[in-house]
């Protein structure tokens, strides 16, 4: 029977002493066996004081992104975006006076390990990854470690809808896949009219992202029209040849071709398509990620009815002429990096901005530097601006902002691809309400 005079804590300490005796009699013995952490530490309690102090030291932040190989087409844009946001924040006095120091690392296939290493290094916040599979692997680890991560992309639709609907510390800045695939379907109907779309085809990369995009486009276009799928090509990532798919499309002559190919796959599909007159055999090509290769296209690749989206941003879409941080962005990015900023630039820019504005808000509310949990709480339903407009980090931890879709054309003035005749889709038009899965929502139209 327990002695009523001994508190539960004291009981615990007595038990612990007994166990120490069992394992060797002293803490040293336990330490030598490498078990110190197992027996806990009474001094583990949080040491953060509530005295209102803001730490003097810089904020150590980590970004993982693709810096090499084919995915670097997207990853370097995210890196430039994150660096630009950090540069601007630091130039304006930092977050509550604290400068941000950003370490950047190649994400490769080790997204989980990179996050763990960042945490071991004592990072206060981490950003990235680009990869959706890597992001999926990270989410439960992020909740275990309790260090906020704002993913730049990793936009697989099911992640926060089905797999991890109750995450605490894991967020994603960029609009998720359903928004761009549905934008493409709605845009096709806007351009051609529902009655004029009888057939459609898909050419999508042969992995989870490509499969998801096609599934959502298929569901969307079949709800909006009576169209029938006539071809579905699934080239491998980094495929050396797209001619089979071009030939099949030429043979089927679908009204709409949907492709979520990106990077070198997008340029190859378009250049081989142009060489084999694919654009003469279809009414419209809609490619939600074609913008990602904006800096790699040649003028000849873009001849014909090719429409591209952007998750939330493409140079001058939305218009950047009313607000100096947006108006100055293109020149700043051109001077610094010599590239056209795309939606993936905004992935990096927005992820940093989401966290920094939330942390700043938390400091103003609390009068002290916030705990991770408090920043996570503030980030939910947090609204903020970037040059891509207004964004909201929803309660489901997904970022929402307007999606854009327009004709992708060559601009001599910019020296690259730009969007014209852009339609803007509000988040509620192209994504389900919180608590509902995308395919269920599309099915309910």
């Amino acid at each position: 029977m327990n002695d009523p005079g001994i508190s539960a804590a004291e009981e615990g300490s007595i038990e612990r002493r007994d166990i120490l005796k069992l394992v060797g009699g002293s803490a040293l013995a336990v330490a030598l066996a490498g078990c110190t952490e197992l027996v806990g530490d009474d001094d583990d309690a949080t040491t953060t004081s509530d005295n209102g102090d803001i730490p003097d030291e810089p904020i150590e932040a980590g970004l993982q992104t693709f810096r090499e190989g084919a995915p670097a087409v997207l990853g370097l844009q995210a890196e430039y975006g994150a660096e630009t946001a950090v540069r601007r924040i630091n130039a304006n006095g930092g977050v509550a006076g604290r400068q941000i120091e950003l370490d950047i690392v190649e994400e490769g296939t080790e997204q989980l390990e990179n996050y763990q290493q960042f945490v071991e290094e004592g990072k206060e916040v981490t950003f990235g990854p680009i990869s959706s599979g890597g992001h999926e692997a990270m989410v439960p680890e992020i909740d275990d470690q309790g260090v906020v991560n704002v993913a730049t992309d990793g936009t697989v639709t099911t992640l926060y809808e089905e797999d991890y609907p109750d995450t605490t510390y894991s967020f994603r800045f960029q609009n998720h896949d359903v928004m761009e695939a549905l934008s493409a379907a709605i845009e096709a109907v806007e351009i051609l009219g529902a009655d004029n779309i009888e057939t459609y085809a898909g050419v999508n990369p042969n992995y989870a992202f490509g499969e998801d995009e096609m599934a959502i486009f298929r569901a969307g276009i079949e709800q909006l029209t009576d169209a029938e799928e006539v071809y579905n090509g699934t080239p491998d990532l980094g495929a050396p040849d797209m001619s089979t798919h071009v030939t099949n499309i030429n043979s089927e002559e679908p009204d709409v071709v949907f492709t979520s190919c990106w990077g070198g796959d997008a340029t190859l599909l378009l250049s081989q398509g142009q060489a084999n007159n694919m654009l003469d055999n279809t009414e419209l090509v809609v490619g939600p990620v074609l913008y990602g290769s904006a800096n790699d296209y040649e003028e000849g690749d873009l001849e014909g009815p090719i429409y591209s989206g952007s998750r939330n941003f493409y140079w001058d879409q939305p218009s950047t002429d009313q607000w100096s941080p947006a108006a100055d962005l293109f020149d700043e990015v051109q001077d610094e990096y010599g590239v056209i900023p795309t939606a993936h630039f905004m992935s990096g820019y927005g992820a940093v901005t989401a966290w920094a504005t939330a942390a700043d808000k938390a400091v103003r509310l609390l009068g002290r530097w916030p705990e991770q949990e408090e920043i996570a709480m503030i980030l939910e339903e947090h609204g903020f601006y970037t040059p891509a407009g207004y964004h909201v980090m929803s309660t489901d931890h997904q970022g929402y902002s307007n999606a854009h879709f327009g004709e992708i054309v060559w601009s001599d003035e910019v020296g690259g691809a730009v969007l014209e005749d852009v339609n803007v889709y509000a988040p509620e038009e192209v994504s389900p309400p919180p608590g509902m899965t995308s395919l269920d929502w599309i099915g309910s139209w």
Partner: protein
Amino acid sequence: MSRFLVERDGKTHFRPMKGLELTAGQVVLTLLGIVALFAVPDITSATALSFSIIHQGILFGLAAVGLNLLLRHTELVSFGHAAFFGAGAYGVAVLSSHYEVSSGFLLLLGAIAVATVLALVIGYLVAGYLDIYFALLTLAFNQVLFAFVLQSGYFNYNDGLSVRVGGDRPSLLGIDQWLVATLGTDPITAYNYTLYYLTVVILLVMLVVTWKIVNSPFGRALDAIGQDRTRAQFIGIPVDRYVWIAFTLSGIYGGIAGGLFALLQLHVRPEPVLFVFVSGEILFMAILGGIGTLVGPIIGGIVLIYLLRLARFYVEYYHALTGIVLLLVVFVLPKGMLGTLPEISAGLDRRRQDPTLLRDDVTTIGASIRERLYRAVSTVRIIIFGVK
């Protein structure tokens, strides 16, 4: 003399089991190694070393120990051992995500079963081949498996599968829950440390098993096969069957390591566990640590995982770093980090006794550099001007 102590060559040897006799120095080294393994959590918390990376290194090293069984004794080079590591990892992931198995013990048994079946099938198909054909066949099977998993919805494509059932970690024989309930240990710490100590126990058991295998008649037969297949056949060794058995055993090591890796990472994706480059890394680990040694592959595993996982945080051209290390091993430590240690130690001893040898070393190094430079210049001359 007790049954654990024997006299041999005028020295007392410790004999923990039949056939295994260790000198006093070897006993000390073995004990130090075991203590170091068990103290890793505290060593890493007191230093800048990474606990998680060392744990991962040990797991890949365990797969390399298995590969080394084949490499060292049958002298067959497998370029496809990630197949078994990945099979073990996916065995765990499939059982937990599709069948909601939450017992770590059952998950590990599943990993072993899947890897064993796969190794039996692949081993049967490759056992009769030699040299480059054997290597390429193993590579091909690895690649087929990788492509199959990558393109299959059942394995969730490249997004992979979670090892958590309902968001919870698997149970590790109830030990982790006991630690939480009894000692008040943080659940994540309890899980990670329990898994680590289970890994250490499994590693030690597997090392003893390996030692027993290589010192058994079966191990000697494998040596004979490695030295000359035809002669081994002539003396009555059923070569293909023995290679098949060795290949299967070797795959089981990979399966156990992969299963534990899945339990550690709690999410399995194709690239980190099944891609053919991972096979190359496992092979490199065995060479790096020393294929002539029992525990060399473990050291190689830890070192290479450190290089692969952490070099990117410090060096921009981190891919080159692994290449440079490989070059150094080939040129300077041809028997691997652990395998070359006795030679280095004997050389140092000789130089302590006779310092004039150092002068010879300088002369030898100078001559070697001159010779290599001459060869390089000759090669460049031939490339530019042709042979005259």
